[in-house]
């Protein structure tokens, strides 16, 4: 059998930590993926927890370039990770499950995300199922200690899972954390032996220090999940450790949202956006790139969403917006989409009558709390659009016009502020209007470092 050849840098930037308990074939594939797809100076440390199927011996005999530690007994996942971290030399620790195959470019993206943002304590990548569907696009934690992986079974190209946001915790299947942070926190807690929920516990400890876990969708790994331990065994362990989590974190959990159910589906998005103090949705038929990027820049701690009322945008636009942390939504029925997000948004920006026609009737029922900002995009082409525009103007707290004629028309209908922006610097004007309406954005961001998207 050909040895798995890993590179071991004398000055690693990242230490890749893998803990095995059986599953040699999966582990082999995972290590081969690391060798193939990791282009940051790194070292690999594998701790085998006395695998019953000879995985330890295979690691010893068939893997080159890694530090292999063979435990005489199964010490559990958390302690084994701690054990690996104690010999690590990289500035970052990349925790990787032995059944997770990293995809090209994974590590530089995770490292970049962590380096750029000082109040991010850890970064988690996107996990894919073996069949290519989405397994986990970030994870949420509820008030009862249960968790929810976002995007289960979804199409990984779905823009809903392509943007970066603050995840409640990051699965240790593919997680990057600064070694100093991990050690400062004392590593994984042995209370969660033999495995599961220690990553949730770590995330809660990071949060206590004001550090977030960031979901970085561009860094991906294909994860077989439970390939080593089996699904039934995992379920039992998860439930047992959930009890431990609940008892240790009762106070922190009490302030969280209750888990979603068929009567409360809105809780999923509410949970995902819990850290976003303001949620701004921009309804527009075509890509308002400059507006969205400017909003993302000026409201870095808030949720900026583009509700694409004109159909699915092109992939390049989605990529660029996702990288800026903008959510792109292309629902089949915008009214239902808004209803599912009952009372969620702080502001709704309508770019033109076409956008207004799609959403304005639903606003009163589903988003009565939202401040509406309407921007003219020229005279409506037909009566139904005119009707939607009138409804929007009557609802708006602020209207942006391009000329005096629009201003006169709007002034008769709009109870709020109407202004003319003949210079057409719409992004800046919209930012100014949102600020005037009380959305502070980056003016209220924490002063140190660059805040991540929520």
């Amino acid at each position, binding site marked *: 059998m050909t040895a798995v050849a890993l590179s071991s840098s004398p000055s690693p930037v990242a230490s890749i930590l893998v803990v095995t308990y059986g599953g040699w074939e999966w582990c082999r594939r995972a290590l081969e993926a690391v060798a193939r797809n990791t282009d940051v100076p790194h070292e690999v440390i594998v701790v085998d927890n006395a695998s019953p199927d000879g995985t330890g011996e295979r690691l010893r005999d068939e893997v080159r370039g890694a530090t292999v530690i063979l435990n005489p007994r199964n010490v559990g996942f958390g302690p084994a990770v701690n054990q690996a971290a104690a010999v690590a030399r990289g500035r970052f620790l990349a925790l990787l499950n032995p059944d997770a195959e990293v995809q090209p470019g994974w590590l530089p993206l995770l490292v970049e995300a962590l380096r750029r943002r000082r109040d991010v304590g850890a970064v988690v990548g996107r996990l894919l199922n073996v069949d290519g569907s989405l397994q986990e696009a970030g994870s949420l934690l509820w008030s009862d200690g249960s968790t929810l992986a976002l995007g289960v079974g979804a199409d990984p190209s779905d823009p809903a899972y392509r943007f970066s946001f603050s995840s409640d915790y990051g699965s240790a299947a593919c997680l990057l954390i600064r070694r100093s942070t991990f050690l400062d926190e004392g590593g994984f807690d042995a209370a969660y032996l033999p495995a599961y929920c220690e990553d949730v516990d770590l995330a809660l400890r990071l949060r206590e220090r004001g550090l977030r876990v960031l979901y970085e969708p561009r860094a991906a790994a294909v994860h077989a999940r439970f390939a080593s331990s089996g699904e039934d065994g995992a379920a039992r362990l998860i439930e047992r450790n959930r009890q431990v989590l609940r008892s240790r974190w009762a106070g922190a959990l009490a302030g969280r949202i209750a888990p979603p159910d068929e009567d409360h589906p809105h809780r999923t998005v509410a949970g995902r956006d819990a850290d976003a103090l303001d949620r701004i949705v921009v309804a527009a038929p075509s890509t308002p790139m400059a507006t969205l990027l400017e909003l993302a820049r000026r409201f870095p701690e808030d949720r900026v969403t583009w509700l694409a009322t004109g159909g699915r945008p092109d992939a390049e636009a989605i990529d660029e917006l996702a990288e800026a942390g903008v959510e792109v939504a292309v629902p089949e029925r915008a009214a239902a989409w808004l209803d599912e997000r009952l009372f969620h948004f702080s502001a709704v920006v309508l770019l033109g009558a076409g956008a207004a026609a799609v959403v304005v009737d639903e606003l009163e029922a589903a988003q009565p709390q939202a401040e509406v900002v309407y921007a003219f995009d020229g005279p409506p082409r037909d009566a139904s659009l005119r009707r939607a525009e009138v409804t929007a103007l009557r609802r708006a707290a602020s209207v942006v016009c391009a000329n005096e004629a629009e201003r006169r028309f709007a002034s008769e209908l709009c109870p709020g502020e109407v202004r003319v922006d003949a210079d057409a610097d719409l992004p800046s004007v919209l930012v100014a209007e949102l600020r005037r309406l009380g959305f502070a954005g980056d003016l209220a961001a924490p*002063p140190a470092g660059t805040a991540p998207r929520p």
Partner: protein
Amino acid sequence: MSRPVDAAATRAPVRVGIWGLFDVEDFGAAAILRVLRHELARRIPGLELRTFSPLGYDHATRWDGGEPSEPFGPWSPERVGELAEALDAVVVAGEVVVDDAGLAPAYGLPPEDLVARAPSRFLVEGLGPELEADCPVAYFAAGLPDPGPHAPRLAAALSPRSIVSVGDEAARDRLAAAGVAAPVEVVPHPAALLPAAIRPDVLDRRLEYLRAMGWYPRGEAVVVVGPAGRVDAAPAVAEGLAPLLADRPGAVVVCAGLAPGDDAFADALARALGDRAHRPGALTLEDVAAALQGSAGVVTSSVAVAAAAAGFERPAILLDLDADPRLEEAAHAADAVVRSARDVAAALEKVAAAGSAGEVAAGLAAPLHAELDRLAAMAVDAGASRGAARGSVAPDADLEELRRRLAALASAHRTRGRLLVAQRWRFADRVRDSEARERRTRDELERRIADLEGERARLEAEVAGKDRELATLLDTRTFRYTAGLRRLWGRLRGAGRR
């Protein structure tokens, strides 16, 4: 004990460099750096700290805690100038080398490579007297070997400095002999302040981890960090511990190796002790601290470990098998040093029984804090004058007040935002609860209506059946033929009632 220095004297952050051998596998160096980072940050608000070592991140070690130093780079006047420009003050801490070639084994490099880099020129000469007039360099708990032919370097470099502290009297004597004119303080090993630099919950977590690994007992533990390179002494040390283990049936000796040379001794000791020993694997700084804090006592040949144990108020003795004067000096009391392995148990019991661990810890901490206060003041003063030179102005009171208010407003905005977010999802919950109740009520009503309609249909069918039965009865010949008699009977009954 320590006081925050008034850093409001300058608006610019105070930039301090810590220089030392922090890129080698050494618990003592790692402990010094951890303590310095913690203590200087406590004293100097807005501190910007950078650490430098001969190879720095090009020779990352597991002891650097994930925050490797920057490399000095090869010595040159230009490099020295760069560092002097980038820093306001420098603290050289821990072991100081005068012979660059002698560092080669620690880095696994050829001696000529280290000679070319000349790290000793940074650690000894610092920035040079001219640049140090603006960017002062201090020595803190420096360890100095016999300088030999390098004595004049030390004299020239250290004499003008205002703050020089070393780790033992022998080092001070060497400096005096070398002609260093500056006053030299002797301070304990800074590892004595390690307890304050690591959170208690972290120590608890690491101790539980050590136990989960089977490396630390649930009962009593005696931690031994033995003399590197003295594998031969392991059996004697095991024998020396035997009386203590006999008196404490549940106690276990934790044989720790903190540096490459220690591991052989730890392995040998663990073999000699058999099932009364635990032999941990690789330990982090936090693990060592947790092990010391959780112990019933510590036996060590490491000054740093002894100081840390004393800081945690654990009984500790120094095992000095090779007549090392530094160990003699580091002991807080004469009976805390043993020169023979057979005296280990008695000495440890005696130190434990003395009950003076708290006093010992305080006695070690006081001079360290005093020296750290001096360092912080030096750095702040240098930062203030260099900040002014860089063009930063003394803080404007009104501007500072505005900054404070802006920060308070931003914080209030975020708090209010979180409240609104929580209110919104709770309100959404209430609306959805109402909708769900309405749905369930409607479903229930529809079910009941359906049930009632079913009942009605059944009753109607029953009535229809009865009607059909009656009609059939009325149509019989008997009924028809007796109609007249029944009418007569009816009339007779009616008359009788009247």
